[in-house]
């Protein structure tokens, strides 16, 4: 008999409520009474009272991929709710998730394969059959493959996770042979990931709000739009209200997160790292550092340095970074920095969090390293209540054909040579520029999936110009359910369904440090002739003569459920279809994994050698040139076994993507090799150093009711948010003679946009803030007022739509310009002039 947890009790309460309500105890027209109402998992038609059919699935509005349930009435999906049984989402969903129905029934949906009929971008299309579409595509792809140039097929995705990624990338593309696979991480938060890969190894930080006692937030909007939104939002609110946990937010704007925080501390853009550095100095000088954790820290070149030596080295390094120094840079009062530093160090456990406010800058990677340092020196790493390495489900899955060719790739994924030190997740915003440049070759077929290169990257006009140019991109294929700005520039469109019509398994990080396994299943059959791209690649592979071993995404998910330990025993695919989620009820949350010792036998395995310079045990067979030593041997990190510290060997902080040691690296030999400062430091943003009188810094942000660039077609969302005036502080506006409602020009070195001003007290002076999401010029009538060429009029909302503004997109004036360490696009750095239009 298992111990009954609080969560089980909640579930029991839910179940008993339902029994009471439906058990026939109360008769009559109203069954209501002083009974405990169930929290959810049931819904009824308000018109007929008939119970709606419930299907568990998973969201895909944002990368959170919250577990959810949907209700179907008369064959139509009518309602989406959170999944009560999910340990991540706890039955909650956000506005974007709930509005997913609008994605499914968008009257602008592309329902048939389309082929360009006029000039590229002219908007003339011809409907073709799937057979014609795939015959044409197979012809082109097979030819490239047969000629020995599979790399000339470039596949570029925006969102591909879980089973989607495994089917398309691991099975299909790797068997095909192209490694010219682009992603979108560098326009998101790659500086965070590279910063983490350089310090603690694998990327993604989970914030343990359930157990924390203090939250220090540098530029995360986690109460409104986060990569693990619903799981974390509710836990932070609960911590603040139920346990009086203090949350202090540094931000240039009074975001919803800042507004709901215990305290908002306004800060200049790109200076969070200076404040965090000064905090580190205060904490070290006050002796409030966690001596025990220092054992696992690397703070000097010497892997055998004592804690005292490391502490001394860090103190010496931090000496110039006084709170007074940071105040001059950030405008945050030195006294505030000091008091927050001490409070953070004395409150155990405490959690420092950060996101795009620190990440989307020239110094994004360094900011990440500084914040990692703040967490590390206070011992708030991988501990209950601290900043933890993310834990997600580990599915077993079919890998496709055993025999795979050695993949080839065009060197257009990582930015221009020498511009980015560690492009660990590629530099996608430079891809079009590199195609234009042509020195590293050009793809002959450019296909994109759940991605809008034109709109999501900076400098939209440059993107349009390149995408339109057939001499640069001879053939382009867009996989999309919607006619967006990029689809409009394709040669062929393959109609994908919405995520509410397809299969997946998912694995997003759990806020509880216990992995959750969950699936996405269709609520309805794909509309029109839309076909899940995952099914399409199975077909393409078959046509090209390398069948993947499964015929559809559904089969892949089924096979994965039958292979995956735990899920299999729980009942496999049938169980998952019925329940949607599974976690091991006996699993303990993963904390302090780094403290585990490596078994002696693992060190004696063939090929495992000890690297004196780093103290790392690693399997030298993983590298072709192991003699270069662990740090310099290519792919050595893949052979990492353990870190020797004193006379023991620990699992430590296992590397991923780069050859860091198993220490928590504050001192980075890898950065030193690239001519950067090895210890975390503050790097001023070059453009901000050279600002002239009247120059403002452009900052961008997200609101809680829109996804970055994929939700403006959702009528229920866009109804609430269809205009994004440029926000300016009254003091700054006065200097420019600008009032709310004035038409203004915002001009950067790239170009200028015309928008409307909103003078607000909720922003610091000296900047102008424009949200992402809006300013679409395609994407259908709700988003842009423009009907797409293949749209229907089959939606009641089209007659009811009342808004006539569509906002302005800031990316027109933001250059594609990488952070020199990670390649992060610098969405928050643009210097501009604002004038009355």
């Amino acid at each position, binding site marked *: 008999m298992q111990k009954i947890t609080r969560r089980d009790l909640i579930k029991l309460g839910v179940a008993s*409520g*339902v029994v*009471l*309500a*439906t058990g026939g105890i109360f*008769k*009559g*027209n*109203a069954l*209501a*009474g*002083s*009974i405990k*109402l*169930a*929290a*959810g998992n*049931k*819904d*009824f038609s*308000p018109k007929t*009272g008939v119970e709606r059919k419930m299907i568990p699935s998973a969201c895909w509005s944002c990368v959170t991929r919250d577990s959810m349930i949907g209700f179907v009435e008369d064959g139509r999906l*009518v309602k989406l*709710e*959170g999944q009560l049984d999910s340990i991540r989402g706890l039955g*909650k*969903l*956000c*506005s974007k998730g*709930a*509005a997913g*129905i609008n994605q499914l029934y968008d009257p602008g949906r592309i329902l048939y394969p389309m082929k360009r009929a006029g000039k590229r971008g002219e908007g003339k299309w011809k409907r073709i059959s799937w057979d014609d579409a795939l015959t044409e595509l197979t012809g082109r792809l097979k030819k490239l493959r047969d000629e020995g140039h599979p790399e000339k097929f470039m596949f570029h995705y925006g969102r591909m996770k879980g089973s989607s990624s495994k089917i398309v990338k691991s099975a299909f593309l790797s068997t095909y042979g192209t490694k010219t696979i682009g992603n979108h991480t560098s326009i998101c938060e790659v500086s965070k990931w590279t910063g983490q890969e350089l310090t603690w190894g694998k990327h993604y930080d989970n914030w343990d709000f359930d157990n924390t006692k203090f939250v220090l937030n540098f530029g995360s909007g986690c*109460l*409104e739009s986060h990569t693990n939104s*619903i799981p974390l*939002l*509710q836990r932070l*609110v*609960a911590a*603040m*209200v139920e346990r009086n946990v203090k949350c202090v937010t540094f931000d240039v704007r*009074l975001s*919803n*997160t800042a*507004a*709901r925080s215990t305290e908002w501390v*306004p800060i200049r853009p790109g200076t969070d790292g200076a404040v965090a550095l000064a905090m580190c100095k205060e904490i070290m000088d006050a002796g409030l550092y966690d001596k025990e954790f220092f054992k696992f820290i690397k703070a000097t070149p010497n892997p055998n340095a004592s804690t005292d030596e490391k502490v001394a080295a860090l103190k010496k390094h931090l000496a110039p970074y006084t709170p007074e120094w940071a105040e001059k840079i950030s405008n945050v009062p030195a006294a505030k920095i000091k008091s927050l530093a001490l409070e953070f160090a004395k409150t155990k456990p405490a959690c420092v969090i950060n996101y795009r406010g620190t990440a989307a800058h020239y110094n994004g990677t360094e900011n990440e390293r500084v914040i990692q340092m703040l967490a590390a020196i206070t011992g708030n790493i991988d501990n209950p209540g601290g900043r933890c390495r993310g834990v997600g489900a580990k599915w077993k899955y079919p890998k496709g054909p055993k025999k795979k060719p050695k993949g080839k790739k065009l060197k257009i994924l990582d930015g221009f040579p020498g511009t980015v030190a560690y492009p660990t997740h590629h530099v996608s915003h430079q891809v079009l520029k590199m195609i234009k440049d042509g020195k590293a070759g050009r793809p002959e077929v450019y296909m994109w999936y759940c991605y809008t290169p034109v709109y999501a990257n900076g400098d939209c006009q440059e993107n349009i110009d390149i995408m339109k140019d057939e001499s640069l991109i001879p053939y382009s294929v867009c996989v999309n359910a919607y006619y967006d700005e990029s689809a409009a520039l394709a040669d062929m469109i393959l109609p994908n369904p919405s995520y509410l019509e397809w299969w997946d398994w998912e694995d997003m990080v759990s806020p509880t440090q216990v992995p959750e396994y969950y699936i996405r299943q269709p609520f309805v059959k794909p509309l029109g002739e839309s076909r899940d791209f995952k099914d399409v690649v199975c077909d393409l592979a078959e046509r090209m003569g390398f069948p993947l071993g499964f015929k559809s995404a559904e089969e892949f998910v089924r096979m994965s459920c039958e292979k995956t330990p735990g899920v299999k025993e729980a009942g496999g695919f049938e169980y998952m279809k019925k329940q949607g989620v599974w976690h091991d009820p006996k699993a303990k949350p993963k904390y302090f994994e780094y403290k585990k010792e490596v078994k002696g036998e693992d060190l004696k395995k063939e090929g495992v050698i000890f690297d004196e310079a780093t103290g790392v045990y690693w399997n030298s067979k993983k590298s072709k040139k192991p003699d270069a030593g662990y740090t310099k041997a290519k792919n050595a990190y893949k052979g990492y076994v353990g870190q020797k510290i004193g006379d023991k060997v620990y699992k430590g902080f296992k590397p991923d993507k780069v050859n860091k040691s198993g220490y928590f690296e504050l001192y980075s030999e890898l950065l030193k090799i690239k001519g950067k400062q090895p210890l975390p430091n503050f790097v001023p943003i070059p453009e901000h150093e050279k600002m002239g009188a009247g120059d403002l810094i452009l900052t961008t942000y997200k*609101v*809680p*009711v829109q996804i970055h660039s994929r939700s403006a077609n959702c*009528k*229920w969302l866009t109804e*609430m*948010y269809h205009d994004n005036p440029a926000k300016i*502080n009254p003091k700054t506006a006065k200097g420019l003679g600008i009032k709310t409602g004035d038409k203004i020009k915002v001009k950067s070195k790239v170009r200028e946009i015309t928008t409307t001003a909103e003078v*607000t*007290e*909720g922003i610091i002076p000296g900047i102008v803030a424009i949200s992402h999401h809006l300013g679409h010029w395609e994407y259908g009538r709700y988003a842009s007022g423009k009907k797409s060429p293949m749209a229907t009029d089959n939606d009641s*909302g089209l007659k*009811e739509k009342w808004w006539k503004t569509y906002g302005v997109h800031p990316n027109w004036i933001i250059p594609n310009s990488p952070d020199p360490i990670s390649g992060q696009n610098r969405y928050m750095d643009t210097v501009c002039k604002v004038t009355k239009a």
Partner: protein
Amino acid sequence: MGDKFSATRRQMLKGAGAAGLAAAASLVPAGHAAAKRGGRSKAKAPRWAMVFDLRRCVGCRACTVACKAEYDVPLGVWNTVVNEEMVGRYPDTKKPFLPIRCNHCEGNKEDMIPPCVKDCPEYPKERQKYITPDGKKIRYRDGATYKRPDGLILNINKYCTGCGKCIKACPYGARAFNKRIKSGKDSTKNGITKCTSCAHRIDKGVVPACVNICPGRARVFGDLNDPNSEVSKLAKEFNLVKERDKTTLLPGEDTVPMNFYIDPDNALKTKIATRKYTENESFSCKVS
């Protein structure tokens, strides 16, 4: 107390009916109600109420969209919204969020009929029976707009003439014409949309859609007549009922709302909270 608020025969005929009786209990501070009634086996309906815990509202608008989906509410109108207002001067700026929906008002002490019901020309209509959780019957009159014995203010479109008087009567802007439906009695006019507290869900034992989804758990729904309910506990802890002039919207209107606010940032003092809707105005949702 019970006597003081008992509905007179005349009021019953006028329409407050048993709703008034049951409702009276909810004005008694939570926890006292049961004791005061002693052993009397008077039929007791729940008194549904909502507590908006503004410490927990992050302005995400999940509630707003969940409601849109639950009823397929047309564009341009809402049954529930969250509004926001920037207050104070930089850097001491605050941004309280204010969720609003129909207050499911008790109505004033004299007649216990909320203004929307009072102004409805098609109220009262048929006799109906409400079955309480312990199986007792409470009689009441329905209407185009009426109050059910559990306090819910509901519409029946078949009676509705589309006159719009209820929209004008509601100072909270909680009602609007639904352009997708014709009023039952006049096909040249539209019917009404408003929050029903998801009567169709709670009658079957499930919380309202907005409560179900709310990620911050800012919307707490339950029976104020049940001292053990979460709303009763919050009411007690924060004096929500006792100090209803400080915890409800537009107390000066004397509508006696049944939505209560836990309000750390003085959201109830903002313009969005103190605004009185007149004529045909309804609330709307704008995110800034």
